[in-house]
């Protein structure tokens, strides 16, 4: 365990306060990151919904049979391609990608916070979580 002892030594109230203060500051930044991500993705999804509904409103909706989405809606390059082509469903999917990216951004900011606190143990923990998230989004498609 290489993390510095100063951050949370129980018997030194001054150090503990400093660490708590940094913790609080990180928490406030994380809150802002989360809010921004959610608002941004909701706006993009709404925009996509407007395009989608203006074109397909009167077609029949059917989700009874599972077909799986085409590759343009399940890979990041595919989604970007359909965003450029101004497809409503592509824009919705782009908004959903932003939403999935929001917790990933939160984890990235947490790493920065723990680095500032020189808390190596928690930098390591957070990197593991980041690895799982990135694998899920980028690496899982081909394998399962």
């Amino acid at each position: 365990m290489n993390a510095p002892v100063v951050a949370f030594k129980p018997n030194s109230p001054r150090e503990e306060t400093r660490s708590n203060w940094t913790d609080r500051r990180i928490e406030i930044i994380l809150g802002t990151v989360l809010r921004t991500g959610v608002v941004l993705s909701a706006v993009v999804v709404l925009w996509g919904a407007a395009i989608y509904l203006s074109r397909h409103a009167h077609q029949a909706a059917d989700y009874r049979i599972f077909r799986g989405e085409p590759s343009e809606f399940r890979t990041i390059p595919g989604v970007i391609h359909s965003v450029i082509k101004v497809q409503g469903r592509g824009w919705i999917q782009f908004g959903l990608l932003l939403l999935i990216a929001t917790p990933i951004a939160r984890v990235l900011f947490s790493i920065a916070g723990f680095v500032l606190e020189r808390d190596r143990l928690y930098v390591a923990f957070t990197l593991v979580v980041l690895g799982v998230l990135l694998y899920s989004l980028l690496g899982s498609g081909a394998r399962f």
Partner: protein
Amino acid sequence: MTILEFTGIVGLVSFVAGLLGSLTGLGGGVVLVPLLTILFHVDIRYAIGASLVSVIATSSGAAAAYVKEGFSNIRIGMFLEIATTFGALFGAFLATRIPTTAIAIVFGVVLLYSAFISRIPRTHAQRNLPPDPLATRLRLNGSFPDLEGERTYNVQHVPAGFSLMFGAGALSGLLGIGSGAVKVLAMDQAMQIPFKVSTTTSNFMIGVTAAASAGVYLSRGYVDPGLAMPVMLGVLAGSLLGSRLLIKAETKSLRLVFSLVILVLGLQMLDTGFWGHI
């Protein structure tokens, strides 16, 4: 049903689910998948994909408000997220392998359990327990603002809590829910984390947990934009309104009604799962 009608009705149902889920604290995601499959005959895999996305939205929206109040413990959150994200990957992997009828049965059991746990009184974390050496090494112990000033707490039974969180993550990935009920078991019962801290910290973790399986669902083609759009927007709007309203007096009867709804949906899911018409 045309796409316009479908979008409108699903959006409305999702709004109500998000509102009730937020007012009762039981979460909207747990009723969404059964409603979509039973009422709208949506394939359960599409329903789970859409629900998972809405779980990220509500949890991130709520966590943004909570972290600023100083109740959530980011170290507990970060540490347990290792367990929940691996669990979520495992759950998402399972979801692509096991038959949909089996998913429905597991869903039914989880709904019945959620209805049950919402009716039993919450056990309060014991005060002034001696610190657990492992929790101290991991620096999980913390404090939060209370009426009598800052209240400190010592986290207990770290390995048990960690294992339970893996299970919570797996259920989240398999069923597309926040699995708050299992988190309560892990954080309140096993780890003895005070109520306010465990609720807000678990909310903080749900977004990351759901993102870990949402990636798999997206790249497997389980997230349909036409379905996820009204679900995500509806649940998000409903839960935001719910967190503003906070009508405390009504919550008790509302909770009873909502847990009855969960119970009925649980029985329905077991029924569809066992008879195979899903």
